[in-house]
């Protein structure tokens, strides 16, 4: 009952004129960046953070940023289907069958089922969020320093272990992120750390400078390497509404995708990309005609597109209840809230109910807006690809430069931005993903303080993390996941070596 009351109050926040406008703006921008390859949701949110820094309504700013995040999931499918260009990472798998459908003249059905599936899954995800988040937040109130240390550590490590990239590189990025966060004055002792004598570094490095450099600028440098030439095949899109047969083939895929997405989205590092891949694999396995996958199976579009939307909703759960961002884009939303004096975590629901319920209610509304924005207007979005990178690139650079400058009216920040941009560019070229670094940077104060406090509590005994029930369970779960992963990796390598032997 309390949940429904909260949700009602959330709708009264989300339905105010300003918030409706910003939810719409977020969905619009989100769809646009979803369509544009080479500009992901993380980069866009970092571009908009300076505006959020200047807003003085935390509810409105999180509504805007959330809209960009889940809006991008809708937009990403459009270019995957029409041009085989994934607009963002979570739509890569949609290219497989979506583009094949478009080749066979069924682009409209693919786009339609992607949008409808996204809508259903997004809504299922928000409903789950509505009912799971409040009890979880209440449970998290029991957490003390050792629990928080275990939780953040396990969260970061899972983010590295589950994303599929190189684990050792991910771990290095986590440590590097913590070290960058350590620059400046140590709040506990007042000692200067790694300032190299620059007084401008005393206050530390702002999250925005790091995020814009590692995601925004480095992405520009990477894109400049290739001469992008998007070819426009003006194919007929065809009827947008799926036929009854399409619907019969995709309804279960949409529902399964929604559930997979919801559960995978909650896990740190899981998120949209992993959930869409998992859903695709599952649909292929369950299908009566697995040979159709890769040749235009509609379930291969419906499942993954649903999964990534459900995941984008449910990845707000750890943020709103535990204060743990589980991917880079959510970490940016976390930063946006921190700047406004709102600390996401178990107290959010009681201290800032307008933020907590407002963003949840806005997600119901946003999903309806996105369905309307994406289904009839799909042709308009494709036109966006005609904006040449020669125009887009310098605009993004100028936005990042002004954004970082305006933090303290300090051009030193642009110098730092450029440095991080170059570092990010080189790291990304060598397959070091910046995601874990950004997450570690924002969580570093929490990890360090909770570790120091725990050691004070326990008189220096590390056993405190294992003997307390909640932190002990968390660590046990993590160990189980790691062992499972190593076992799976071992089995896979055995299998491939057998295959080679044959």
């Amino acid at each position, binding site marked *: 009952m309390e949940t429904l009351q909260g949700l009602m109050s959330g709708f009264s926040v989300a339905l105010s004129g300003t918030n409706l406008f910003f939810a719409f703006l977020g969905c619009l921008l989100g769809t646009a960046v979803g369509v544009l390859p080479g500009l992901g949701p993380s980069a866009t949110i970092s571009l908009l953070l300076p505006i959020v820094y200047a807003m003085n309504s935390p509810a409105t700013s999180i509504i805007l940023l959330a809209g960009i995040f889940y809006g991008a999931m809708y937009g990403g499918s459009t270019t995957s289907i029409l041009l085989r260009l994934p607009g963002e990472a979570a739509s890569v798998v949609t290219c497989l069958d979506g583009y094949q459908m478009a080749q066979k003249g069924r682009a409209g059905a693919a786009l339609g089922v992607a949008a409808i599936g996204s809508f259903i899954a997004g809504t299922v995800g928000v409903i789950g969020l509505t009912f799971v988040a409040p009890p979880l937040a209440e449970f998290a109130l029991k957490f003390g320093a050792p629990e928080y240390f275990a939780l953040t550590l396990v969260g970061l490590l899972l983010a590295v272990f589950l994303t599929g990239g190189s684990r050792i590189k991910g771990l290095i990025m986590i440590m590097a992120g913590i070290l960058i966060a350590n620059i400046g004055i140590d709040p506990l002792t007042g000692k200067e750390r790694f300032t190299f004598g620059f007084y401008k570094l005393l206050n530390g490095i702002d999250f925005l400078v790091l995020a814009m450099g590692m995601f925004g600028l480095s992405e520009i440098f990477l894109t400049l390497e290739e001469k992008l030439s998007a070819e426009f095949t003006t194919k007929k899109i065809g009827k947008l509404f799926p036929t009854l047969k399409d619907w019969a083939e995709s309804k279960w895929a949409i529902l399964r995708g929604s559930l997979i997405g919801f559960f995978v989205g909650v896990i740190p590092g899981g998120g949209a990309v992993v959930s869409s891949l998992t859903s695709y694999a599952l649909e292929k396995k369950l299908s009566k005609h697995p040979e159709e996958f890769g040749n235009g199976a509609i379930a291969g579009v419906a499942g993954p597109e649903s999964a990534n939307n459900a995941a984008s909703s449910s990845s707000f759960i750890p943020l709103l209840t535990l204060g743990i961002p589980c991917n880079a884009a959510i970490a940016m939303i976390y930063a946006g809230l921190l700047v406004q004096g709102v600390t996401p975590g178990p107290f959010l629901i009681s201290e800032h109910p307008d933020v907590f319920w407002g963003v949840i209610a806005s997600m119901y509304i946003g999903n309806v807006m996105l369905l309307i924005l994406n289904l009839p207007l799909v042709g308009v979005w494709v036109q966006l690809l005609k904006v040449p990178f020669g125009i887009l690139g310098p605009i993004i650079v100028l936005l990042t430069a002004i954004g970082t400058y305006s933090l303290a009216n300090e051009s030193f920040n642009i110098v730092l931005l450029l440095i991080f941009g170059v570092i990010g560019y080189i790291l990304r070229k060598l397959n070091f993903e910046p995601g874990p670094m950004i997450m570690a940077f924002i969580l570093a104060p929490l990890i360090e303080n909770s570790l120091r406090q725990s*050691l004070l509590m326990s008189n220096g005994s590390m056993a405190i993390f294992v003997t307390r029930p909640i932190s002990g369970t968390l660590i046990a779960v993590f160990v189980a996941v790691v062992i499972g992963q190593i076992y799976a990796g071992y089995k896979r390598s055995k299998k491939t070596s057998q295959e080679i032997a044959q």
Partner: protein
Amino acid sequence: MSKGERILGVVLILIGIAVSVNSYTALGFGSITQPGSGFFPLICGVGVTTLSAVWMFISRKSETKSEPLWKKGQWIRPITAVGIIGAYIALLELVGYVLSTITFVLLWQFLVEHEKWKKTIMISVIMTACMYILFVQLLAVPLPKGIFA
């Protein structure tokens, strides 16, 4: 392991060592019951060094994947862009926002995109005007005025 990876590995190991030494000597480890400022950085410094060394050791054999960091001529546009942004930063406080921005867009269109002069000038003027209206007039961001101050 490619040359780029080897260089990065060595740089990471050296950074890790420098951080660890600085944390231990200058910042202070404290004690396990009362951790000091250097306690956490030391853990991370040692971690970066160890992990980077392990990474270099594991991937030392993957010679097959040793591609150069840039394919032929691929570095030209990104590095030019870095240079232009550097020039922009240098000009910003000196000549103010409007002049530095227009120079930035001119250089970008001409050197990175190889646009023709006419189009370059048109894009630069329009883009600078839009940025000025958005940030100075609408959002009232205090930007350096430079010689117009």
